C-alpha cells in the first residue's frame, strides 16, 4: 500500500520542478545577459590586462598581451602601505560609523515609534545629505578643517592641535571623511531591521530576569544582526576602495594615500594599466576574503 502510494506520487513531483526551473531560467535570462556583458566581460578583461607587458620600444601606455605574473609582485612591493592604509582606514571608518549609526537607528526605529512624524523627519535628515553631491560635501569638510577655519584656530588655541599641526591631510581627516560619507549606508539597513523589532521580545527578556543591558545584548543585537552585517558591508567594501576622501585634493595628502588612489594614479596619470589592473584584482580578492570570513563569523551566510 505505502509503496504504491509513493510510486504514483513520485512522477508528478519530479516533473513539476523541471517545468518551474525552465520558467525561472527564462526570467533570469535578462539579468544573466546583463551580468555577462557588464560584469564578467570587464572582469576577464581586467584580469587579462593585469598580466600584460609593455610593448618593446613602444610609447608610454602601450601594452601587449602576455603572462607577466611579476606585475603582482611589483605592485605588492610598491604599494603594500597603500593596502594597509586602505583596510585600516576602512575598518576604522566602519567601526565609527557603526558606533554612531546604531544608536541613531535604534532611536528612529524603536524609540520614535510613538511619534511617526518625528520618525519620518529623522529618516529624511539621514538621507538629506544625498541631495548634495558627495564631492561637494567632502570639499566643504576640507574647508571646515583647513588651517584657516575657525575650528582649527580654536583647537590650536586650546593646544589640542600643536601650533604647526593640521587637520587636513591626516589619517584623522580621511577616516572622518569616510565615516561621514558612509553613515547613511550604515544607518538605513540597521534601521530597517530595528524598525521591525518586536518589542514584545524585549518584554519577554525582562520577564525572564534579563536586565535592560542583558536584554539588549542577547535579544536586540542578535535580532538586528542582519542589518548590522549589511550596513558594515555597505560601508566597508566601498570605503576600502575609496579614492576621493584620501586624495590630496580632498581630505588626504601624499601620506594618506589608499589603494584606490594608487589605482587611479596608475590608470589615469601613469598609464600603467597592467599594474593598475593587478592592484584592482588584489583589492577585490582581499575584500572577498575578508567579507567571507566576516559573514561566516557572524553566522549570517543566508544574507549572501
Amino acid at each position: 500500500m505505502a509503496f504504491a502510494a509513493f510510486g504514483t506520487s513520485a512522477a508528478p513531483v519530479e516533473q513539476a520542478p523541471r517545468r518551474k526551473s525552465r520558467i525561472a531560467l527564462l526570467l533570469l535570462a535578462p539579468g544573466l545577459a546583463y551580468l555577462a556583458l557588464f560584469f564578467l566581460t570587464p572582469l576577464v578583461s581586467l584580469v587579462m590586462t593585469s598580466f600584460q607587458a609593455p610593448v618593446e620600444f613602444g610609447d608610454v601606455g602601450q601594452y601587449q598581451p602576455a603572462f607577466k605574473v611579476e606585475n603582482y609582485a611589483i605592485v605588492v612591493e610598491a604599494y603594500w602601505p597603500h593596502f594597509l592604509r586602505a583596510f585600516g582606514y576602512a575598518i576604522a571608518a566602519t567601526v565609527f560609523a557603526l558606533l554612531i549609526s546604531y544608536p541613531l537607528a535604534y532611536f528612529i526605529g524603536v524609540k520614535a515609534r510613538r511619534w511617526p512624524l518625528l520618525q519620518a523627519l529623522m529618516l529624511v535628515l539621514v538621507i538629506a545629505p544625498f541631495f548634495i553631491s558627495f564631492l561637494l560635501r567632502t570639499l566643504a569638510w576640507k574647508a571646515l578643517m583647513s588651517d584657516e577655519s575657525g575650528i582649527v584656530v580654536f583647537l590650536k588655541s586650546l593646544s589640542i592641535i600643536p601650533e604647526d599641526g593640521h587637520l587636513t591631510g591626516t589619517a584623522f581627516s580621511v577616516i572622518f571623511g569616510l565615516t561621514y560619507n558612509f553613515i547613511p549606508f550604515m544607518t538605513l539597513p540597521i534601521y530597517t531591521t530595528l524598525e521591525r523589532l518586536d518589542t514584545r521580545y524585549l518584554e519577554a527578556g525582562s520577564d525572564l530576569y534579563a536586565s535592560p543591558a542583558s536584554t539588549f545584548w542577547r535579544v536586540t543585537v542578535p535580532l538586528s544582526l542582519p542589518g548590522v552585517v549589511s550596513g558594515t558591508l555597505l560601508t566597508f567594501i566601498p570605503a576600502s576602495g575609496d579614492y576621493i576622501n584620501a586624495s590630496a585634493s580632498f581630505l588626504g595628502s601624499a601620506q594618506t594615500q589608499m589603494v584606490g588612489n594608487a589605482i587611479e594614479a596608475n590608470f589615469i596619470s601613469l598609464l600603467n594599466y597592467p599594474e593598475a589592473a593587478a592592484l584592482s584584482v588584489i583589492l577585490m580578492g582581499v575584500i572577498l576574503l575578508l567579507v567571507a570570513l566576516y559573514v561566516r563569523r557572524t553566522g549570517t551566510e543566508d544574507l549572501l
Partner: protein
Amino acid sequence: MAGGAFAEAGADLELVGIHKRFPGFTAIDDLDLRIPAGSFFALLGPSGCGKTTTLRLVAGLEQPTSGRILIGGKDVTDVKSFKRPVNTVFQSYALFPHMTVLENVAFGLRRRGISDATAKAHEALRLVELDHLATRKPQQLSGGQQQRVALARAVVNRPALLLLDEPLGALDLKLRRQMQLELKSIQTEVGLTFLHVTHDQEEAMTMADTVAVMNKGQIEQMGAPEELYELPRTAFVANFLGQSNLFTGRVTSSTGSSIVVETGGTKLEVPKERAQRHTGEVTIGVRPEKLMLHTSPPKKAAGVNVLGPGRVTDVSFSGVSTQYQIAIPGVGLVTVFAQNMVFGPVVNLGAEAWVAWTVDHGFGLVDEPEHAPRFAADTDTATIAVQTRHELLAEIEES
C-alpha cells in the same frame, strides 16, 4: 540572585487599591484582589475590561497609577520586572526567534546564574513532552508546540506566580481543549500559583479554582466557577458567564423563604437566599437549560414558576441541545435549551408553548433595573423600530 527567594511552591498575590490610568481612560479603577498560594485563578472579562493591564501590572511591565502589589507578602510595586519572581506566558508566546527551543527555555535560568540550566531546561521540556524538539528553532514548531515551549520557558523558573495572558487564544478549538487539560494537570503537578487571563468563559470555568469576572476595570463577582454560574450577582455576570433569561418586576409579597415578583402580569417566585434584594423593583433570572418547555398549560404546582402561553419564534439545533426562542406577551423573549432526547425538535416554529422552572433555580440580581436598560425586551426588530420611532417623534417635538 535577582529578586531574592524563589519559592518551590507558589506565593500569594495581593493587589491593594490599584488604579491604572492611561491618557484618556481609566483601565483599572480601585482593584482589590487576593489570590491564595497554589491556586489557579482566572480573570475573566470582555476585551478592554482591564484584565490584561492587571496582568502586566503584576508582571511589572506597567506601573500602577496608585496602589500596591504584594507577592508572598513582599511589596514589589517598585521592583523592576526583571527582578520580580513572576513569569509570563505571553499571548503571542514571544519566543526568541534567534534561539533554539532549548536556549529559549534555559534563558531565564541562565540570567539568574542557576547551575545546570541545560539539564533543568530539558526537564521542563519533558514536562510538556517536547524534549525531542529541543534543537529546533521556534518557527519550525506548530502553534500548539510553541505554546508549550512558552509554558516550559516560564514554568522552568519555578516562579512564585505564573501569569498566563490568553495563551490559548491562537489555537483551534480542539487543541485548545487539549491544552486546557494539560495546563491544569501541569499546575497540579508543579503546585505554582497560576493567574490566567481570558475572555473565554468556558476556558475560565474548566480550568480555574476561582474565577473573577472583570468589567470596566472592576471585579464584578468572584468565586468558584459553579457558584458564579448558578448564582450570578449582577446582570453582567449572568450574561457574560453563559446565558440568562432576565425579568424585571416589583416585589409584591414575600413568604417565609421566597419573594414574589410580578412581571408582565405573572407572579414569579425566587428563594430569598438566592435574591440579592428583597423589595422594590428587582431583576430576577433563570438559566435557559433550567427551563422546561410545555406544549399545553402545565398544572399549577407549589415550587414551580410558569410563564406563558407564548409563541416559538426560533428553533436552532446545536448538536447536544436545541435552542428555542419563545416570545411571551408582556415578558419578552425567553430562551430555552432543551436536551436532544428525541430526533428533531419537540416544538415547531410558531407553536404555542409554556415554560416552567423550579423556584430553586431562579436568582435575583443586585442591579437596579432602571440603571440597566438592556433588560427591556428590545431584542426583536419590531420593538427596536417602535423605540426608534418614539425617539424620532420626541426629537421632532423638541425642535
